């Protein structure tokens, strides 16, 4: 029997599908063709006739790829791809990370001091919350998974995965100078270490934890397809 996954993948060549979407659609069409062949054979057709029938269905419409693409993109009333593949997983991950951090604090698992910069006068602590860091890879993984499922490329999967850390970094860059300005504490000499320690505590280290969860979801569809083909 032919490798239907490969045949369907070839059929979609030239369509506008991303590699992920093409992989997903190919798998589905391959399943249909496989069922068609099996069913035809159970009804008494020999293998070559069943295969021929399946090929005829696959190649009946030369514009199948573009029709499927248009049908998949016809969703004016629903979330677009960027929303589904980036904003939604990123924002959900951000909300979950903030809520979890708050819960850990409420139950007494407060961030711990692991180092500091500066003197007693200008003291800049580096804090980490170990339980929080332990759950962040799962949030990063969930974001990257949903981003991949929505057909987004590696760059957006990574960005969606580490989205909470990016927001924390942006907040630090705004809030720290603002708070120094309001409290009237000395300028650049104090602001830079405060930003550096804040970023390390709440953006760089959590970002690394989130990225850890993202890593398994960075494989390209083409690589997965090659593996599927090799296994078949």
């Amino acid at each position, binding site marked *: 029997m032919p490798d239907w996954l490969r045949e369907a993948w070839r059929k979609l060549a030239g369509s506008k599908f991303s590699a992920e979407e093409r992989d997903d659609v190919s798998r589905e069409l391959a399943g249909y063709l496989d069922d068609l062949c099996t069913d035809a054979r159970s009804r008494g057709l020999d293998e070559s006739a069943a295969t021929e029938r399946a090929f005829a269905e696959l190649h009946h419409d030369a514009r*199948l790829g573009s029709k499927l693409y248009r049908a*998949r993109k*016809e969703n004016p009333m629903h979330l677009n791809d960027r929303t589904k593949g980036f904003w939604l997983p990123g924002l959900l991950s951000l909300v979950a990370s903030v809520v979890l951090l708050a819960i850990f604090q409420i139950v007494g698992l407060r961030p711990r001091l692991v180092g500091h910069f500066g003197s007693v006068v200008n003291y800049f602590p580096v804090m980490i919350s170990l339980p929080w860091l332990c759950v962040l890879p799962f949030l990063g993984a969930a974001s990257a998974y949903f981003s991949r499922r929505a057909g987004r490329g590696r760059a957006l999967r990574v960005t969606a995965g580490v989205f909470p850390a990016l927001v924390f970094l942006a907040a630090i860059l705004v809030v720290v100078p603002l708070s120094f300005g309001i409290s009237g504490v000395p300028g650049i000499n104090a602001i830079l270490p405060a930003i550096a320690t804040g970023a390390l505590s709440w953006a760089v280290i959590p970002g690394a934890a989130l990225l850890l969860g993202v890593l398994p979801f960075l494989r390209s569809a083409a690589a997965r397809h090659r593996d599927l083909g090799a296994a078949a």
Partner: protein
Amino acid sequence: MISANIKRGSAELAILSVLAGPPLHGYEIARRIERQTNGTLRFTLASLYPLLYRMESRGWLRAAWGETPAGRARRYYRLTAAGRKKLAPLRKEWKELFRALARLAEAHHA
């Protein structure tokens, strides 16, 4: 008022109707429609999937990968609440169409 796009409408009704039951994958949907209409309605891969994807995009269907009893991965479709809501007026619309056609045929006969 009967929808102008009769062909697509009938196909949508057929798909929504068979999915009113348990979730089905693409080939099962095509086969079930063929069986339940005694072969009058037949879907091919090229006619079925663009329609399924369009209906999924509109939020009438939801699809998820699952396994067949034989352990094969297939994408199963099921009706969403929006799909169920769509099914009732579509059925009514088609009944109206057939009644209207029957009246026309009877009038022509008389």
